[in-house]
């Protein structure tokens, strides 16, 4: 929040415009109400392009290419990002604040002390986890998992599943999945769920088991590998986790006391694949103020302000890599830009109804591991409704 304000400050000084910010986890609820009532906010930062596609399809958004300098955009942003932000050939959203999701956080000092090495493949990862359990050193648990997030509980699990699916079945299947060209009950999708289940259900892997994962918040869970004494060895969540760790443990040094290794390969064909997310800026009202604001937000200068403060990865090509405050954030940025296969975060790419169903599905799965098939069928029926009704094919 404070960083966002800092980024906006120069715009405010230069133009005198005032930005009033509402942050809420109930974004969908409030946005829906206001849009339905014909009184949307001026500019909204959405967490996912799925919603952007819906809104653009409903005709609620202003096309950005009507006032942004598209030449500048093409210079500063890779075509892939521009495509992701477009619907039917027109640009509706620009991406800010990206985060790679394929990062597994750990404590390098603890690993060194215990003689552990970062695993490179999925099988290594499982073997490594088993080893930690049998060795019984400190930390006793290989994994920390936290899914609780109020209304959005379950989203960290969807990150896991998306990452697994990408590594196991590749980009093409991934695209089919999020475009609902294959059903949720497809065995490849089920396999991704089951692999995630392997992590959560294996006794001794996670403190408190599946229930512990359900009851722990996603921020809380990120602390476990770095407590003194550490309580778990690894935590898988996006690169924005760095901010959580740094806030809680200001004395720790990035790269030495906390670091990440990339998500291990499952199928070697897809090694180096990365899922990631980004916030997307969309505009509802076309006014001089919003034009100027959006122009500013998308510029490298603005984004560098937040980059320097940490916790922000920009997809703007012009942002200087040296602006990143430490080796770790630079590594995260490089992981994003250097990915062999890149896909946008799965649940964020789906229509909001399916996304919500996906989140809830993971919660149900953790509570009823033997009912995976019926959970998947439930999501499938929601998906049929949602995709069929909108008749849209997300980018």
């Amino acid at each position: 929040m404070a960083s966002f304000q800092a980024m906006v400050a120069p715009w405010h000084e230069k133009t005198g415009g005032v930005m009033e910010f509402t942050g809420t986890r109930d974004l969908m609820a409030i946005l829906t109400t206001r849009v339905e009532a014909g009184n949307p906010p001026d500019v909204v930062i959405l967490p996912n392009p799925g919603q952007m596609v819906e809104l653009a399809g409903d005709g609620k958004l202003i096309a950005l290419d009507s006032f942004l300098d598209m030449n500048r955009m093409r210079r500063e942003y890779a075509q892939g990002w521009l495509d992701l932000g477009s619907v039917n050939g027109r640009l509706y959203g620009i991406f800010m604040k990206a985060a790679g999701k394929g990062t597994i956080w750990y404590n390098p000092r603890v690993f060194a002390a215990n003689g552990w090495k970062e695993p490179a493949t999925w099988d290594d990862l499982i073997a490594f986890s088993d080893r930690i359990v049998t060795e019984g050193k400190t930390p006793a648990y290989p994994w920390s998992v936290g899914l609780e997030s109020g209304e959005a509980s379950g989203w960290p699990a969807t990150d896991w599943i998306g990452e697994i699916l990408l590594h196991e079945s590749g980009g093409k299947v991934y695209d089919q999945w999020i475009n609902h060209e294959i059903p949720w009950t497809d065995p490849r999708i089920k396999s991704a769920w089951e692999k995630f289940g392997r992590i959560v259900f294996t006794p001794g892997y996670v403190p408190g088991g599946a229930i512990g994962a359900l009851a722990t918040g996603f921020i809380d869970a990120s602390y476990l590998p770095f407590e003194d004494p550490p309580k778990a060895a690894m935590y898988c969540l996006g690169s924005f986790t760095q901010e959580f760790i740094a806030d809680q443990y200001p004395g720790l040094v990035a790269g030495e006391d906390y670091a990440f290794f990339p998500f291990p390969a499952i199928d070697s064909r897809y090694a180096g694949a990365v899922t990631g997310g980004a916030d997307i800026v969309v505009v509802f009202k076309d006014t001089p103020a919003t034009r100027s604001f959006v122009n500013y937000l998308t510029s490298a200068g603005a984004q560098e302000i937040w980059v320097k403060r940490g916790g922000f990865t920009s997809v703007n090509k012009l942002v200087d890599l040296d602006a990143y405050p430490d080796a770790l954030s630079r590594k995260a940025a490089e992981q994003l830009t250097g990915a062999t296969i890149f896909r946008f975060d799965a649940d964020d790419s789906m229509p909001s109804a399916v996304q919500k169903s996906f989140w809830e599905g993971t919660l149900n799965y953790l509570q009823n591991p033997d009912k995976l098939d019926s959970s998947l069928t439930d999501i499938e029926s929601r998906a049929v409704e949602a995709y069929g009704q909108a008749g849209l094919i997300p980018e």
Partner: protein
Amino acid sequence: MAGWLRSGPGGKSINRRGRLIPWLWLLPSFLFMAVFLIYPVIDTLLISFMNRDSSACAGAANYQYVFTNSAAQTALLNNALWLVFFTVLTVGLGLIFAVLTNRVRYEAVAKAAIFIPMAISFVAAAVIWRFMYTFRPEGFTQIGLVNAVATNLGLDPTAWLVQQPLPYIDLLLPAPLHTNNFALIAVGIWMWTGFAMVVLSAGLKGISTEVIEAARVDGASEWQIFRRIILPMLSPTIAVVATTLVIQALKNFDMVWVMTAGNFGTDVVATLMFKEMFNYHDFGRAAAMAVILMVALLPIIFITIRRFRSQGETR
């Protein structure tokens, strides 16, 4: 009721003006209520028979969904749980406290302590109890009071807001009834017992002491007095408290929403309706749920009206 009061010295012209006057007094109120309450109710009823964005008629499809879909069934079941346990336990505890506080000199202080939660918002209560129910896995330090007590008693820490099998309870209850619902109901009881206690206490004080003294003299035990004299005389008051609580149990939204967002099997009709509106964008289904809520409340409306009428006639 009160007789006709004229608005000035008599005369035909006054009468005619007089007939309009009540309506002038009523107008602002009815305008508000018509616009904000009556029209939306009718609107919602209509929407419940239409499709998700109200563009076409859908017959009874939404209602069919609500009664056959498993998530919706869970919500209905949970409302029933609230209805029974929340109401009965709150009335019961309120009654016990009313009777007991009646007998001590620091009655006002004791009552105040139990009544305080009525003053705070559900959001604040949710923060308080989420904190109380905080779960840390076994072997970790517990910072939530409930789990701290549990671990001190030798039990495992429990994730109260998530479904956690408590062996002895699970033997009694079938699967869809999750024990975490009771954790939420407990919060509701904590908040509303004060209300029940205060109203029942007033009712209690209205019972004439002579009857009770006479019974005591006749050798009746305290328990017999309670059952045979106090309870029956208190039953209208109990009815009032119970109806208020039943309404709360059915309308319940804030508390469930802020504590679990309806996850982990704690959904009630009000939270599910919210999700249908804002996550799933199916206004037809959401409206159907609202209507079902209203229908469930209809008996309450009738009881209240009947009670009001019978008391009105004795005036």
